[in-house]
């Protein structure tokens, strides 16, 4: 076999159909699916002129696991672990969207205590997701140390969550009509200590990273996403809030008991990477506020409905439920035909919309900036590919 033949074929399906510009002095660079800063198996085809990106095109599908199809062949409780595996960093929000969609279809009223537990755990999970993102973006910008400090706190949160959920990453904690296990005093106590600790750590994070000159130069006025670009692509979450629109599902379409808590929706109208960075850093503090309020007013009662359906068969009909995940609006559209498994389940992954605007934003930036923009979108590839 002549090995040299393979040199002549120009890449695979995508790179063959990647239309470069008319210029002849450009380089097509295949960034990913194995690349340190594509956060998993995202692949981006870049056409570069020197280090300037002329065209960028994300290629998806390397970790497509058919989560939507799986829902159609599994019964409702069997699908419970799946949503947590789409976005493994904010698994509980996905859990919540799935569980709440079924509950809404079946008109199940969740006990008060269960709602509080859901809020507390979901916000803890949001903090740990943002902490990991914080470490990861700095890793992409070349600083190694922050991710270790982030993991210090993240591990503590995981230890807390492990007590009642039993897992550390891909949680499967919410059930139809409540949660799987009650929280105990140690959980409450640990959560309070961790919240206080995170408030203290905020200063260190600010000193080490947020105020850092190099970082500010790398993030400020880089990757500007105007608000209409966000709207055109349906970007949500910190990406949208970093562009100045304080849209948060917890406030816009309040679900569960979020209307009882006092928290701010941070928004920065600088539209740049720094805006998105600051939104997330503020959100950690807002989540702490929510958790503390929820812990203060935690009612007694059942953690799950005593007559929660073990094998639910929702009536025929369709329902949409959206929750605010760490990356944006997580939506689940569930169509039931009255059977023991959904007729169709559509997962709306926020990362997918957020990634779509990348190819427009990345045009004309440097490779290093593209990496920073990609990181500032906070992508979780399994969620995008589903």
């Amino acid at each position, binding site marked *: 076999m002549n090995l040299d033949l393979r040199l002549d074929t120009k890449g695979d399906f995508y790179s063959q159909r990647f239309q470069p510009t008319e210029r002849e002095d450009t380089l097509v660079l295949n960034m990913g699916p194995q690349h340190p800063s594509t956060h998993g198996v995202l692949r981006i085809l870049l056409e570069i002129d020197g280090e300037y990106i002329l065209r960028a095109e994300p290629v998806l599908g390397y970790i497509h696991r058919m989560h939507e199809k799986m829902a159609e062949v*599994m*019964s409702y*409780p*069997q*699908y*419970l*672990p*799946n949503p947590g*595996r789409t976005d493994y960093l904010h698994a509980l929000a996905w859990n919540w969207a799935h569980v709440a969609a079924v509950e809404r279809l079946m008109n199940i009223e969740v006990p008060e205590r269960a709602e509080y537990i859901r809020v507390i755990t979901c916000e803890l999970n949001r903090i740990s997701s943002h902490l990991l993102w914080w470490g990861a973006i700095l890793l992409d910008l070349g600083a190694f*140390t922050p991710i270790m*400090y982030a993991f*210090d706190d993240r591990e503590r949160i995981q*230890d807390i969550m*492990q*007590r*009642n959920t*039993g*897992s550390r990453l*891909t949680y*499967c904690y919410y*059930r139809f009509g409540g949660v*799987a296990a009650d929280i105990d005093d140690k959980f409450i106590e640990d959560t309070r200590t961790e919240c206080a600790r995170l408030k203290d750590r905020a200063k*260190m994070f600010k*000193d*080490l*990273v947020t*105020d*850092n*000159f*190099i970082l*500010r*130069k790398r993030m400020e006025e880089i990757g500007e996403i105007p608000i209409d670009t966000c709207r055109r692509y349906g970007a949500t979450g910190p990406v949208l809030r970093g562009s100045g629109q304080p849209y948060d599902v917890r406030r816009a379409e309040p679900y569960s008991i979020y209307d009882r808590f006092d928290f701010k929706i941070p928004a920065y109208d600088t539209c740049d990477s720094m805006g998105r960075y600051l939104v997330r850093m503020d959100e950690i503090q807002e989540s702490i506020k929510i958790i503390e309020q929820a812990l203060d007013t935690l009612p007694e009662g059942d953690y799950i409905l005593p007559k929660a359906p*073990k*094998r639910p068969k929702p009536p025929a009909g369709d329902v949409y439920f959206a929750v605010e995940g760490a990356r944006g609006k997580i939506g689940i559209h569930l169509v039931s035909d009255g059977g023991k498994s959904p007729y169709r389940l559509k997962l709306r992954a926020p990362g997918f919309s957020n990634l779509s605007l990348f190819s427009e934003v990345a045009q004309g930036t440097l490779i290093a900036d593209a990496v920073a923009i990609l990181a500032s979108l906070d992508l979780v590839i399994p969620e995008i590919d589903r």
Partner: protein
Amino acid sequence: MIVKSLSETLSGMWSLLVGMKVTAVNFKSPQITVHYPRQVTNLDGYRGHIELVPSDEDPTKSKCIACSNCVRICPGACISLKASKPKKKAAPEKTDAPSTANEAQPESKKEAPPKKAKPELQSFVLDYNYCCLCGLCVESCPSGALRYSSDVYVAGFTRQEFVYDLLSRLQYQAQKKEQ
């Protein structure tokens, strides 16, 4: 303009020094990691693969009533169990259909009439390769016969090593405890 950019640069340099101070403080602070194989701190809440709970009378027997609830709910279809037909020929019309008899088991087994002999568990095999550790089997078990083990040291060379025969595991553990 020069003054402005100069002052910006100087404050920037100062922020770098502040950053270096943070890492210096952390350098001096005590370590927060645990030396894992020698120190294990957070295994108490760990949900490992499932294991059978021994019954109160006989530690080599399981509490399992072979109702197959776990088999049905498992998303990965990794549990398979076999049950013997009830030995006592109390109800011959039911012995020929053990599966329906299993399903007919009421949720509270103690109130079951004694003449309906319990099917005895013969094997309970967990294919850990496909398990996603969701814990739905434990929750669905009406007799509390399943629980999580804290077995974290799972490593092997072949897939077959992760197909656990939980009943023999239970018997082995019971024997070990006796010794």
